[in-house]
């Protein structure tokens, strides 16, 4: 391969890592740079330059926010095998490129007791011909063959001109010793055999000049050379010479590794157990897949180890250790991978984090025929976040097995042949059943049931899941898990569409599930799901009650603790919320993986940190939650939600650039994430790009007409003087708020704020805010009440309410602005000035209108202060 092609091949290989959307551009840039590098007059190492492309490509791959990146590796078994094959081929290619590795691979073995004789009194391994003759005379009977070769440097005519070559003069006896057949010319003239570096003989020569014995005997006595012989016996007796076995000098790589490799794999299997069998007939594909994986990792381990051990000038003996431990590692990976795959379709289960602990699963497991795989199953990792001031749906954690801390402890076949099993808790009041863990067959069974249990969220959408689960509950009306799944699916539908009628459906279905479920730990999942629905309906007290009931079952369901904390947060009991999250952390450390735990708890703790005024800490925790979510391969919507929350934290801190980036990441993760789209619209408005902002708000509202965003669009229209369109949006807000009873409940706070902002229906706004306060006492509800009271001209009451809203020292510009205006109305200009300044310092663009109002009011206060000063000076 020419260097140019070789370098291009490096770039093209690296390009495979680059996200597809950027690949062509990336490759074009590197190819262009390569063109210039090749022509650089300073002699740049072009290969080293090209190798840097891998780092660049890897960075782009790692920085790619697209969830497809994880799915790329996660989904298909074919893809897994392709990658293994490619990696094996790469390791083999590298082994061929590395001289030491190639030597180890292609080494020519010399049979028998072939030795090199040396003098003990000399450092080098050469001896003189005179010594050789003495040796031959004395020990000839102990060798079946003994031969001398004398390397000399001589000029040789080659097609490329005269060159100095190292040529070893020897006899045909040498090749007989080496068992290498020679073709000799009929003329009997000497034959030159070109040297091959595979012959690991100490005489490193370019060519062998085969001559008659007489020619060698005619060499001067002091001629230095090497003496090779084959021992008749295993050792040389009574000798003044030392000998080194040529065979021992060589490293018998492949045979050694062929033994070590299976040993490592066997040990791995013994220590981690076989993948076991599946309780249902799943066909031979699974076994074939396992066998294919084993076959494909063999070259990876073999050649990869050889590559690692050959980085020096020769193959290090440590290669045996690398192979052994490498085989241990890959065997364990093979088994773990096998367990993480759906036994039916062999796709990876989406929730790797969930699989890290076998305790995180629960289901009743009666005959199920479907499975959920990567990109489809969002049951284990689903969770959402409250958006804080907008009063949207609260924390959501749904679906079978969400954080359940249960372990299968036995399974048996009932009389009618249907497979049944029972699950007992390992955490909680009935905990401590670890004795029978480690049965891989049972573990695999649990895996297969997980596939079945997580059936509902298919990639095609929630509708098909709902359809499948509806069929299931029709065919098995006594199956509480079916109703549980269906209820969760309805809830997901409500989340995705904003259609609140699904809340009612979810609630009724989950009630049915709870009625059918045994009154023990098995009821934990429906209870948790019901709590999630109540959170969505803003029935925080009910959500709290159900979460606590789920905790009380002793199932150790982590999601229950999470929802308990969420409910406390929305109800304004922040200390209780923190206690719940602390319990979640403590239990999570025992029953979950660090990644899963980070995903479940960090975004929640981020929100608490933000409320307590630690904006930097909140951003840090949100980033941690996002990193964990990406590793957990969570569904698009959840990832988008986390990015949206990060964007909110940045926006509230006035960091428009990072907010922009976070919202855009949210949109990339889920183009239909209406909150992220609206977040970006908010940033555009803050940047003064009102046309862009309007387009984005319209796009968000087209997905789901969320009242807060409709009102914000109205504000932007108003800002640019399009009063008619603004009015239409404001009318829409009111209309949405009055669509149904539940809408009113959900939109109490937003409507109250809206009325107050618009200065309309102020008594009604006060009533709504007070209603909301009955439901929750968080700082945003206090803030709403304060603002409505202020607009109703009840300044002192407003001040009392805003003090409660400011109780946690939250750095929210809107609350600070409300506080400033309230204190200004009470003629407490010093306080007003402080709060308004803080509002603008925190985020100079916090609101389309109020940011300007705050500046103006501060100016008024300053002018009024100056007037007072002048007046007092005049007196």
């Amino acid at each position, binding site marked *: 391969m020419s260097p140019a092609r070789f370098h291009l091949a490096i770039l093209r290989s690296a390009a495979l890592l680059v996200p597809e959307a950027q690949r062509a551009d990336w490759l*074009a*840039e*590197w*190819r*262009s*740079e390569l*063109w*210039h*590098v090749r022509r*650089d007059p*300073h002699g740049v190492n072009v290969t*080293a*330059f*090209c*190798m*840097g*492309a*891998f*780092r*660049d490509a*890897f*960075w*782009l791959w790692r*920085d790619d926010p697209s969830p497809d990146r994880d799915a790329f590796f996660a989904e298909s078994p074919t893809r897994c095998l392709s990658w293994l094959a490619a990696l094996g081929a790469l390791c083999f290619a590298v082994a061929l490129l590395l001289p030491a590795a190639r030597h180890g691979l292609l080494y020519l073995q010399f049979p028998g007791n072939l030795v090199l004789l040396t003098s003990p009194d000399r450092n080098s391994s050469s001896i003189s011909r005179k010594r050789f003759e003495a040796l031959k005379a004395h020990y000839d009977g102990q060798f079946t063959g003994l031969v001398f070769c004398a390397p000399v440097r001589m000029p040789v005519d080659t097609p490329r001109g005269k060159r100095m070559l190292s040529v070893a003069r020897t006899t045909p006896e040498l090749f007989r010793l080496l068992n290498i057949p020679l073709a000799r010319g009929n003329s009997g003239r000497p034959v030159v055999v070109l040297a091959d570096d595979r012959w690991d003989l100490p005489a490193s020569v370019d060519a062998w000049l085969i001559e008659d014995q007489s020619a060698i005997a005619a060499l001067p006595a002091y001629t230095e050379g090497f003496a090779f012989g084959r021992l008749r016996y295993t050792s040389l007796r009574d000798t003044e010479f030392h000998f080194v076995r040529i065979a021992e000098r060589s490293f018998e790589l492949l045979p050694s590794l062929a033994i070590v490799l299976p040993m490592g794999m066997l040990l791995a299997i013994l220590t981690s157990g076989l993948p076991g069998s599946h309780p249902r007939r799943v066909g031979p594909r699974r076994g074939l897949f396992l066998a294919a994986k084993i076959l494909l990792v063999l070259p990876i381990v073999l050649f990869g180890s050889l590559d690692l051990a050959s980085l020096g000038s020769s193959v290090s003996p440590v290669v045996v250790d690398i192979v052994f431990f490498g085989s241990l590692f890959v065997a364990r990976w093979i088994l773990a991978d096998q367990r993480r795959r759906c036994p039916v379709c062999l796709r990876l289960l989406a929730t790797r984090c969930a699989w890290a602990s076998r305790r995180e699963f629960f289901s009743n497991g009666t005959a199920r025929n479907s499975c959920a795989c990567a990109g489809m199953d969002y049951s284990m990792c689903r969770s959402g976040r409250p958006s804080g001031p907008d009063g949207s749906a609260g924390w959501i954690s749904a679906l079978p097995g969400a954080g359940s801390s249960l372990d299968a402890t036995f399974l048996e076949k009932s009389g009618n042949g249907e497979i049944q099993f029972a699950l007992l808790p390992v955490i909680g009041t009935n905990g401590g059943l670890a004795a029978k863990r480690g049965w891989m067959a049972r573990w695999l069974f649990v895996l297969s049931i997980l596939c079945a249990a997580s059936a509902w969220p298919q990639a095609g959408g929630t509708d098909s899941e709902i359809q499948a689960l509806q069929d299931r509950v029709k065919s098995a009306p006594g199956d509480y898990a079916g109703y549980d799944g269906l209820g969760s699916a309805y809830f997901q539908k409500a989340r995705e569409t904003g259609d609140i009628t699904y809340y009612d459906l979810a609630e009724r279905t989950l009630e049915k599930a709870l009625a059918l479920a045994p009154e023990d730990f098995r009821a934990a999942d429906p209870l948790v799901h019901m709590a999630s629905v109540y959170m969505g309906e803003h029935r925080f007290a009910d959500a709290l009650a159900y979460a606590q009931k789920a905790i009380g079952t002793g199932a150790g369901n982590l999601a229950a603790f999470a929802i308990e904390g969420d409910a406390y947060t929305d109800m304004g009991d922040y200390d209780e919320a923190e206690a719940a999250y602390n319990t979640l952390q403590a239990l999570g450390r025992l029953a979950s993986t660090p990644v899963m735990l980070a995903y479940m708890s960090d975004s929640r703790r981020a929100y608490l940190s933000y409320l307590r005024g630690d904006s930097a800490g909140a951003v840090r925790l949100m980033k941690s939650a996002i990193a964990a979510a990406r590793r957990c391969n969570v569904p698009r919507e959840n990832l988008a939600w986390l990015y949206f929350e990060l964007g909110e934290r940045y926006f509230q801190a*006035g*960091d*428009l*650039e*990072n907010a922009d*980036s976070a919202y855009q990441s949210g949109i990339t993760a889920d183009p239909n994430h209406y909150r992220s789209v609206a977040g970006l619209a908010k940033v555009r408005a803050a940047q003064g790009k009102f046309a862009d902002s309007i387009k984005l708000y319209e796009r968000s509202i087209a997905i789901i007409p969320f009242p807060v965003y409709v009102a914000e669009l109205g504000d932007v229209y108003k800002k640019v003087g399009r009063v008619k369109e603004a009015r239409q949006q404001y009318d829409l807000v009111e209309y949405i708020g009055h669509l149904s009873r539940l809408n009113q409940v959900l939109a109490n706070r937003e409507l109250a704020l809206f009325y107050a902002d618009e200065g309309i229906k102020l008594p009604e706004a006060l009533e709504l805010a007070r209603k909301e306060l009955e439901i929750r006492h968080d700082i945003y509800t206090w803030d709403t009440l304060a603002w409505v009271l202020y607009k109703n001209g009840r300044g002192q009451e407003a001040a009392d309410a805003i003090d409660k809203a400011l109780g946690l020292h939250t750095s929210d510009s809107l609350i600070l602005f409300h506080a400033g205006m309230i204190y200004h109305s009470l003629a407490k200009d010093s306080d007003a000035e402080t709060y308004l300044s803080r509002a603008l310092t925190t985020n100079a663009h916090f609101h389309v209108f109020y940011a300007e109002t705050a500046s103006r009011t501060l100016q008024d206060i300053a002018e009024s202060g100056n007037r007072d000063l002048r007046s007092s000076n005049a007196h």
Partner: protein
Amino acid sequence: MATELKLSHTAAMILKAIEAGHVYGFGVMEVTGLPSGTVYPAMRRLERDSLIRSRWEKQSIADAEQRPPRKYYTLTASGRTTLEAAEKRYPLLAKLVPAVVGPDA
């Protein structure tokens, strides 16, 4: 915020190199002495953080010079601000990265 972004010394060197007129990856490599595996990912990060922006050279210019078009990098306004802050932090930066004298400038 970009203006408050604290750059590593390497990133600051690259930013300085671009400001000094070394407007493509290999040029930055040459002047900073950093390997390609460092320079290009760092430039991606800088571009992602909106401190630099890239543009492809016009095909006609490249054709006229019988070479492939190059991707050029320039500092954004926030990149310039960040570099000013970085220069205060790393006072020797300007000495490490000489300005271009020639066609790149």
